């Protein structure tokens, strides 16, 4: 098999007007796996991203009640979100390159897990949300019967993502002389949001505190395992600024772990260990901005487009969406998704009022029941796990009291994101 490449553009449902997804209800999520979580890699090969990937995939197989020989498709997000191991020296095979250390390709997984029946591999770059769409569509299209979707996301020793270069070619020539990066884009957008809707950063506190609370009810999450303390409103409001109006607790914590999901056909899913959770839609947003930064108007337009695609492809309406887990890796963009999707009737500019109400998992509006990446650490897959667990009725202390028959998860920004809609019924 030749080295795996990124999925072709034709895989992604990034246009409006495509109608209900052609494979709606014909693909199912049947297994989830979560490796141990560390704050940073301790440089031992048994805790490498490669080793953790094998653990995560084996857990997903055990969850589904199938063996590695049942896997005939592998999709990974090959880049690990953290920094590279280089220029530090590599190790003996299979750790003689970045593959397995700072990220994990499909080829690495096939080779080192001895997945002998794999006939389909592909990559969904940058985010597991991307890889989820690729794996789901592959099953729907019949390119494989049972696909594992994997991402390993790492955090090397030392400070995360420090840029020492003073010279920037390419797109960075237009942004980096002023220090404009994703953080400033999100902070600027939120400041514009606050001005437009007459609100302020303090009003984020109930949401962020609730994210941590939900995360502490995820036994596999970073905070539940390593820092099992609640976050108080006072702590949130006193946190240092990262890029005002974004503070420390608006950012998800970089961690070192791997997560895996198994997708198969709905027919095969019925014979597996878990109650199938059906895929009702996947869709994608690739927005193009007019100039050098994304304006609030563009952000809201992108979010609206995502919402239209989510509902059009799944055939659901806002009132039919039960579990709601958009990406929160910067908490300051969560409101765009909430308002565009109109989950529980929230309209534009109303998110902060909604946060001030009862958004607990026990209550009538269990917002982001996963605790998200803010409440569990930066992976971008907690929302998918939670949707599957909630729809199975296996979310433990987080199990919502309201109906849990459909769910939405996705990541990452309004301009560049991928989404999956889940359902307990294929119909």
């Amino acid at each position: 098999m030749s080295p795996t490449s990124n999925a072709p553009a034709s895989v992604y449902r990034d246009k409006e007007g495509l109608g209900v997804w052609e494979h709606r209800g014909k693909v199912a999520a049947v297994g989830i796996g979560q490796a141990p979580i560390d704050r940073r890699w301790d440089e031992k090969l048994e805790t490498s991203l490669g080793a953790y990937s094998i653990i995560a995939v084996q857990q997903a197989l055990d969850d589904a009640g199938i063996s590695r020989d049942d896997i005939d498709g592998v999709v990974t997000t090959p880049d690990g979100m953290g920094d590279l191991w280089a220029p530090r020296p590599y190790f003996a095979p299979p750790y003689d390159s970045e593959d397995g250390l700072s990220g994990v390709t499909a080829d690495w997984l096939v080779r080192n897990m001895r997945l002998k029946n794999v006939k389909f591999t592909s990559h969904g770059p940058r985010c597991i949300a991307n890889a989820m769409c690729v794996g789901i569509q592959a099953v729907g299209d019949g390119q494989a019967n049972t696909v594992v979707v994997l991402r390993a996301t790492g955090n090397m020793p030392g400070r995360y993502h420090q840029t020492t270069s003073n010279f920037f070619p390419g797109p960075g020539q237009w942004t980096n002389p002023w220090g404009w990066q994703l953080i400033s884009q999100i902070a600027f957008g939120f400041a514009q949001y606050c001005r437009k809707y007459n609100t302020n950063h303090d009003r984020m506190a109930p949401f962020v505190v609730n994210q941590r609370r939900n995360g502490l009810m995820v036994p596999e999450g970073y905070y539940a395992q390593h820092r099992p303390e609640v976050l108080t409103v006072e702590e949130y409001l006193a946190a240092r600024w990262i890029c005002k109006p974004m503070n420390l607790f608006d950012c998800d914590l970089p961690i070192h772990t791997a997560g895996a999901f198994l997708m198969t056909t709905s027919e095969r899913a019925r014979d597996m260990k878990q109650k199938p959770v059906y895929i009702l839609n996947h869709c994608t947003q690739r927005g193009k901005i007019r100039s050098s930064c994304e304006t609030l108007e563009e952000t809201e337009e992108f979010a609206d487009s995502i919402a239209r695609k989510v509902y059009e492809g799944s055939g659901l309406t806002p009132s039919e969406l039960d579990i709601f887990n958009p990406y929160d890796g910067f908490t300051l963009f969560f409101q765009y998704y909430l308002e565009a999707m109109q989950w529980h009737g929230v309209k534009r500019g109303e998110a902060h009022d909604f946060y001030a109400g009862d958004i607990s998992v026990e209550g009538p509006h269990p917002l982001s029941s996963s605790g998200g990446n803010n409440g569990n650490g930066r992976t971008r897959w907690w929302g998918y796990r939670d949707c599957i667990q909630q729809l199975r009725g296996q979310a433990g202390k987080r199990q919502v009291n309201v109906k849990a028959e459909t769910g939405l998860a996705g990541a990452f920004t309004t301009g560049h994101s991928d989404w999956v809609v889940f359902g307990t019924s294929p119909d």
Partner: protein
Amino acid sequence: MPKPSPVPNELSKPFWDACNQRRLIMQTCTKCDRMQYPPEKTCDACGSDENLEWREVSGRGRIHGYCVMYDSRLKLLQAEQPFNIAVIELEENPEIKFFSHLPGTPPDEVPIEANVQVEFQETATGQLVHEWRVVS
């Protein structure tokens, strides 16, 4: 404050060369009468590269919004924290947005919607880049 340097390529070289002459120029599609920044290989509206040319603009703008950086990933800028990063819209076409540290404006004291005028600052390689200063 010190700034990292842009590294021009074939597409951007005319822009950065103009900055070195303390001139602000915009890539413009003459068929669509449409500016675009950053420059692209083709006009985003008509898709053609046949009518793209560089036009000098006034250098006047307005502050659209801002944030204040306290923890930049860019090592060179960390010594200057906190610093403003403002978004400037061009007078001739407010859809065109630039970034600015707003020299002369203290951090977090940014007068949104105030008028600004372009000026040029030297970066690590000697390349000048466009900056903006509040004018009364």
